[in-house]
């Protein structure tokens, strides 16, 4: 049983990477993460919001993020996630890899 793979229609591993990147901004709950992904991509990336939760579980299991319960802006119990040092390292590795892959794809497609 290794690292679980996401089942979103993004490139494999992308959702995880996006979540980690978003969490660079600080402690956020699931809803906020979904909101941010949508906003930052100018509504281009449509993640089925439910898929976020398996991804969060997976990231937490791998020790890349840590969740703890707190109160949301409107005073409701929500779970806030933060990046761990391991997660930071993983994100760096992932983004480097992603840059390589997309660069290669772009070269083949003649975009670059």
């Amino acid at each position, binding site marked *: *049983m*290794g*690292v*679980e793979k996401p*089942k979103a229609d993004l490139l494999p591993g992308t959702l995880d990477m996006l979540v980690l990147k978003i969490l660079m901004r600080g402690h956020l*709950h*699931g*809803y906020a993460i*979904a909101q941010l992904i949508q906003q930052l991509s100018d509504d281009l990336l449509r993640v*089925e*919001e*439910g*898929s*976020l*939760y*398996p991804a*969060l*579980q*997976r990231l*937490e*299991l*791998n*020790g890349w993020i840590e969740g703890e319960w707190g109160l*949301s802006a*409107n005073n*409701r*119990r*929500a*779970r806030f996630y933060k990046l761990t040092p*391991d997660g930071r390292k993983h994100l760096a590795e992932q983004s480097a890899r992603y840059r390589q892959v997309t660069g290669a794809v772009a070269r083949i497609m003649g975009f670059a």
Partner: protein
Amino acid sequence: MRAGSRWKCFRRRLRYWLDHSQRNRLLWEEMEFHIESMTQELAAQGMSEPNARAAAHRKFGNMTQKSEEARSTWIARWMSDLVQDLRYSFRGMRRDAGFTAFTILIAGLGIGAGSTVFSMVNALLLRPLPFRDPGRLVWISNGGNFAAQTEQYSDLRELNRSFSDLAGWSGFYIPGDRQLTGAGEPERLTSVPVTGNFFSLLGVEPAIGRSFTAEECQGKYSAPTAMLLSYSFWRRRFDSDPSVVGRKLTLNNHTVTIVGLMPASFDFASVLAPGTPVDIFIPWPLNDKTKPAGNTMKIIGRLKPGTTLQGAQAELTALGKQLNSQHPERNPVVPRLVPLDRHVSGSVSPALFVLACAVGVVMLIVCANLSNLQLARLGTRQKEMALRAALGAGRSRLLRQMLTESVALSCCGAVLGLALAMAGTRELAHLHAFNLPLLESVRIDGSALLFTLLAAVTSGVLFGLLPALQVTVRSLREGIQDASRGSSGGKRHAWVRDGLVVSELAFACILLVGAGLLIRSFLRVLDVNLGFQPERAAALRINPSFRISGFAQQNSFIDEVLRRTRSVPGILAAGITDMLPLRDDRSWAVSAVGQVYGKSHPPPEPFIRVVSDGYFEAAGIPLRLGREFTERDRASSERVVVINETLARTLWPAQNPVGQTITTDGGRKVVGVVADVRHEALEKAGGPEMYLPMRQTADYAAMQLVVRTALPPDSLAAGIRTALRPVDPNLPVREFVTFQDLVDRAVSPRRFLVLLLAGFAAFALILASLGIYAVISYSVSQRVQEIGIRIALGASATDLQSRILLRTVGLAAVGLALGMTASRVLSTALGNLLFGVTSGDPITFILMGTLLIAVAAVAGYIPAWRASRVDPMIALRSN
């Protein structure tokens, strides 16, 4: 990922899994918060509350699916299925407690028996001997099962090239041959003389202290200066006090230093001399001329790396021939090599093999029985399974669920079985009276646990597979509407169940015949004419604690002991011997005057016993010709000897042996002939024997006072001791043994095998009868209506009963025929274990066949009787 983070990840996963219900709840709360937030936002944009909620849900996706997906990151799917199935199985078990208890009991008994037998096989055959690199150790006997002279050992050790070293120990140490006096109660110790390199050859180091030095191995045989303690003796006598090493003790009036303690793992007795506990080890000085002459040394060797057993055998055979021609004055040596482990457990392996097979058959019967029970329950499960199938459970999912149930049951059984096996192995390990090697090391260890688990899973699958296949095939095909009236649907079913019962009966038959043959052999063995009468005879060790310096002192000691013993009320006869039948042995070559012996016609080698007057009467050995020894056969009178019938026949065929003379031991005249005594084993004829009068020789190592009593011997032990106290106040108090004990001990391995096998056979018979009972009563209950109609139409009770009984006996007969045929073939494998019966013994076959049919008939009669009392009105109205 690095190993550390993988481990952390695993630990997290385990933690999540352990409180998965809590986590699951929190996950839902988290997702609900998400939806709530979305709803609020949409509502803020002007959507109505219900619409906003619906839109949020749409956008979020299937919550159950997501939660399952999320959950599957910490538990794999199959695991959660397994947990579900298990939970379901346990619920089912609670609902059907009777069935569950019965299944667990039967599976537990079967698995318990299996694990116990496996532990024995493991300890005696599979586990390596507790020595360093035991595979290279070789037992070197002198032509079969004899020992060799120490001179031969020294030469073999010197000249051979196949072994890195040879070592030896005295094959004729006598239990209790050293007396410990001084501190504490005087006690007789059993000491084994070993060569100086004995322990290093085996690769065993003393736990405390050291082994013997070369100097200690140069002393006198009768007065060693150093000794090593065995672990059990150390624990018993010194309460595990480590400071005893270095202390000096008095053994046979000599001071001996304790130089070391052997570790607990080194159990000399259980490996090399089963049944006689050894207290101490002493060095065996090979240069000492006073050491016992003759074939006294047992030899082991460690093969050099790269040398084969065949190569070593060839070399030693040649070496033996060379030595025999160079030293005609010595006893001949014919080295025969056997791997040490084979020598140790070779004699018990056929019996263990039989036991292992028997336990395997028992397991098969258990499985057939449980399979049958499961099938009987299928009627009720059918509907449920059909419903599950209709709701979309796949065939493999249903199969898996059924198998999970049966494996869960058998694993519960295994827990019970393990408890039984633990109790069983503990019992076995403490059976000191049993003459089996390595028995003390029988225990439940890792491999036995593994075996138990394997047995549980295998039997679970085995007994669950048939019902599982049945149920899945049927539920997918026939659906829900069947099941209510099992009238015709049961046909194929019945066929399978009949097959199971028949195989159960056949297996039970095999076990019964095997056990029957061994029981008859056992009875034959007990019936054997021993040559002595064990009832009401007993022996007490009376070696004088002081030194006997001459014949006068020795003979007055003997006179005094016998006079005082005979005056004890209840003593019918008393005599002294040096060796007890079925326990001690030694042999000499003997030749008659006027006969020529050579290589092709070797002189007979009778067993030698040194006895006093009254011994034959006390032991119950009948006199055939001539006279017994009397008090007047003394050092000063004519040198005489008594021989047994076999020796008389060998030396003087068709002549009167009384009055003849033998050349051995300075020439002795034969004055009497006594019956043959079996002294190696009950199964083995005695061979030639020779008795020397104790008052005419000093060549003996022990004195055993043998008494024949009018009362049970145990009650007289104290009286004899009191009577003997004036003769020697230091006589030890232990070491009282009845002749019946000697016999029991000699037959103990056989009794053990018979008991276990009879137990297995009885268990098998019970299971088979339960099986046939279950099948018949099931078929009766299925046909209650039909029976009701028959009765209503005028069928008589006897008519019905005989109909049902006929079916029972029919099944039993088929099982019996199969079982008998298989038994006839398999029983030849019992081979040497049989005694006095052939493997096709008709009486056993007939008796066991009758027993099986009778038990089956009784098992079938109960449901038949119940069927005949069916009230037709009730039967027709029901359903």
